[in-house]
């Protein structure tokens, strides 16, 4: 663990100081909760899963050796818990393949590509695009949603995400790209193009 303050807090938690656990997790709780909320897609489940994840982290603290940053370790536990919850509850959106770009026999685009990025420069339009994107994110499969949130919002590396999602770096890279393509297609349709 690189952070000496965190090392001291960790020692206090291991000594039985519960308030030290709160201090230890406080810098990360918002980011972790938001990831869980995005994966579970409802506040009630998110609260349950977040609590489960925090308790799991507390119980596993003796096993934390500092190979990863504490915040990353905590985040990985939470994402894993959220995905397990979704699998158990079978809460997986069905995705349509037309959410991916289509190509003709020459490997060219089946339809002209609409560049909507100019409209993203206007604050109001950008806000609307973000809303459309948030809706599109909800419609992704759970694992793709977890991966794209972890990479493009939480800034995790591919290998950190692979650990959190019990998959490989290659699978994370492939799913991340696929998820981004789906989001791009949805935004293109929202903007009236392809």
């Amino acid at each position, binding site marked *: 663990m690189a952070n000496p303050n965190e090392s001291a807090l960790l020692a206090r938690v291991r000594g039985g100081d519960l308030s030290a656990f709160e201090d230890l997790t406080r810098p990360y709780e918002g980011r972790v909760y938001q990831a869980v909320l995005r994966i579970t897609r409802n506040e009630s489940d998110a609260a349950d899963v*977040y609590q489960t994840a*925090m308790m799991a982290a*507390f119980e596993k603290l003796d096993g934390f050796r500092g190979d990863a940053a504490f915040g990353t370790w905590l985040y990985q536990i939470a994402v894993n818990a959220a995905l397990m919850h979704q699998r158990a509850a079978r809460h997986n959106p069905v995705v349509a393949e037309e959410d991916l770009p289509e*190509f003709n026999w020459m490997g060219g685009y089946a339809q002209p590509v609409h560049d909507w990025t100019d409209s993203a420069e206007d604050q109001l339009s950008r806000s609307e695009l973000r809303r459309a994107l948030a809706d599109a994110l909800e419609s992704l499969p759970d694992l793709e949603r977890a991966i794209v949130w972890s990479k493009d919002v939480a800034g995790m590396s591919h290998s950190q995400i692979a650990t959190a999602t019990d998959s490989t770096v290659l699978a994370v890279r492939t799913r991340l790209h696929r998820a981004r393509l789906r989001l791009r297609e949805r*935004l293109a349709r929202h903007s009236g193009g392809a």
Partner: protein
Amino acid sequence: MKRLVARLMRMIGRRTCEDVVATLHDYFEGSLDPRLAAAIERHFQGCPDCRAFSRTYKEVVQLTGELGCDDIPDEVRQRVRAALREHAAATR
């Protein structure tokens, strides 16, 4: 047929639009083989659709990053605090 066209194009150092889309993640990450990256760049020069596609792909990543926030409802925080106290009391 599509794979044959793509293979023929690669033989002459060119890429199809479908090839370009498949590599965008690695292209923006900077992890492409330099020769492949150069082939992609050459393709961009002659393909307005791919330039538009890559701009929109990059913008999706940027917009997704803007969705983040660090809010956590206080009642969730309180729940965890209560659960920890309960756990500590039970294991004493």
